[in-house]
């Protein structure tokens, strides 16, 4: 690839593997530092429903043994590493004998579908708004209107989400309240199903888009301003290029580079960052699963999700590092 040396790629991939290992190791030890214990947490959960669990002491001991929680940490760590390498995440501790893999598999499409799509949408919308805010030729009316769209970002999006629910669901009854799809439909590629997925996804997506758009817009505006004085824009204008061509291919194309990095870095944060969206809209994604796992101290589910997160983030970062020279041909990874 352009701008890449073999040495660089080898080093980069080495770093990639190291980062995965480091993160995975951290995520093994961190939850175990907390006083919570998955089996105790499970018992607590039952207690909060049933008031009292008889013989819970023995129950806890029995499950701890079954899960190998009494093994030395090193033994647990090694078997953890093994399971991560083989992608066999084992059983959920809090909902044994449900498999972690199945649980994640059920949640993942929703997270990818809703959260990734709306993150990308908000990135695009925000970038365009930011670009237009900085563009000389933006019509005056838009100029007034654009910053207004940023005020959404100023509202904590839980409120935004609730207001959306209030307006669109309660009052206007335009959208379904919660969930990922109409549960009388079975998942598949039918028109009705897709339609219902879109209907259910609109509000949560809207709240994510509205709430995060402003950050992208601000960043974009800053970069546009930096790019605005460049000589190549003058030449582009001299060439008689269409204003929109200049905007997109010359200004935005140059201004968006750091934004892309931010986007990629944001991908890892998607799941962790949107727990509340999923919670608020009852969306069946990984964020909610992660939150449940954390509060139930369900190590295996937590580890499974986090491992996937680690993989996606680190891969995304690796990719951006490898692809960046293509986006910004000036970057070269030659050693100085």
């Amino acid at each position, binding site marked *: 690839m*352009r*701008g890449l*040396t073999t040495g660089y790629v080898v080093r980069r991939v080495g770093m990639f593997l190291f980062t995965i290992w480091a993160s995975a190791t951290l995520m093994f030890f961190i939850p175990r530092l907390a006083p919570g214990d998955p089996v105790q947490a499970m018992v607590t959960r039952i207690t909060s429903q049933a008031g009292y669990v008889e013989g819970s002491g023995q129950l806890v001991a029995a499950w701890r043994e079954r899960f190998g929680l009494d093994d030395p940490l090193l033994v647990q760590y090694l078997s953890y590493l093994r399971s991560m390498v083989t992608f066999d995440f084992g059983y959920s501790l809090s909902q044994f004998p449900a498999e972690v893999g199945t649980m994640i598999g059920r949640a993942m499409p929703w997270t990818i579908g809703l959260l990734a799509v709306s993150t990308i949408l908000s990135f695009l919308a925000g970038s365009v708004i930011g670009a237009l805010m900085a563009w000389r030729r933006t019509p005056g009316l838009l100029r007034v209107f654009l910053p207004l769209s940023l005020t959404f970002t100023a509202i904590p999006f839980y409120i935004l989400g609730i207001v959306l629910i209030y307006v669109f669901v309660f009052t206007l009854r335009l959208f379904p309240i919660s969930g990922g799809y109409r549960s009388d439909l079975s998942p598949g590629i039918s028109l009705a199903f897709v339609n219902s997925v879109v209907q259910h996804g609109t509000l949560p997506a809207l709240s994510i888009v509205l709430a995060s758009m402003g950050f992208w817009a601000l960043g974009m505006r800053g970069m546009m301003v930096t790019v605005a*004085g460049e000589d190549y824009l003058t030449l582009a204008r001299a060439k008689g290029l269409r204003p929109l061509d200049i905007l997109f291919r010359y200004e935005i194309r140059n201004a968006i580079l750091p934004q892309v990095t931010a986007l990629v870095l944001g991908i890892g944060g998607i799941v962790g960052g949107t727990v509340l969206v999923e919670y608020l809209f009852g969306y069946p994604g990984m964020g909610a699963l992660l939150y449940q796992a954390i509060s139930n101290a369900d190590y295996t589910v937590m580890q499974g999700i986090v491992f996937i997160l680690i993989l996606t983030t680190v891969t995304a970062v690796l990719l951006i590092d490898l692809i960046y020279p293509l986006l910004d041909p000036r970057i*070269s990874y030659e050693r*100085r």
Partner: protein
Amino acid sequence: MSDSPLLEVRSATKVYEKAGERTTALDNVSLTLPDAPATITTIAGESGSGKTTLSDAILGFTTLTSGQILHRGRDVGSLDKEDFLTYRREVQAIFQDPFGVYNPFYRIRHVFDLAVKRFGLATSKAQARELTEDALRVVGMRGAEVLDKHPHQLSGGQRQRLMMARAYLLKPRLIVADEPVSMVDASLRALILDIMLRLRDEQGISFLYITHDLSTAYQIGDEICILYQGSIVERGDTREVIDNPRHEYSQLLISSIPIPDPDVKWETGPLT
């Protein structure tokens, strides 16, 4: 200080490697610039022949693939802090592109202030001001006019003159001047070249004058090296070389010098 030369380029070779393609920008170039007497050494050559690469190497901005740059006998790549400061103090530069060298954030004054401060040229504010004004005067400018401007408010020529003034201010032993006059008008060019001469004669500052404009070299240069595809193909006294070029490329180069007479046009010789 040792009696080793001010600067020595020892078989400098620089190869850019990219996507499997190798560009040899410098090919075994050697050069010695004595401390005294001060001289103006011209490096001339076609565009892309490695002139800027050589200057970068001398200034420590690029690492050579092989070979060495020695400042007073010491490899500039491994100087200790003190020697490095001396090296910077003694070897300065004027860059080819006067547009990028100004930090757009600061006013012009910044360039001078930094230099004064960093190399401890003045003990008081007033003295610093005076030094700066002096330097500006040499290039025909006045502090009040330019110091508080931002770089983008100045023309290319103005910026280049200011660079010259900065170099003057520092009074180094050697100035690597990469196309210092390519952006200025004829009268300024004379001015700048004159400054160079004066600096050489009065201050004993040597120049490595990198240019493609042989006529100016002819006017002020002492020694000349003609670079062609990364290596020096001809070197000698400037006037001798220009009057009587030996190498084929030197001949082509010299025959291409425009004649400042509307009635004597270039002969339309066979060109590449």
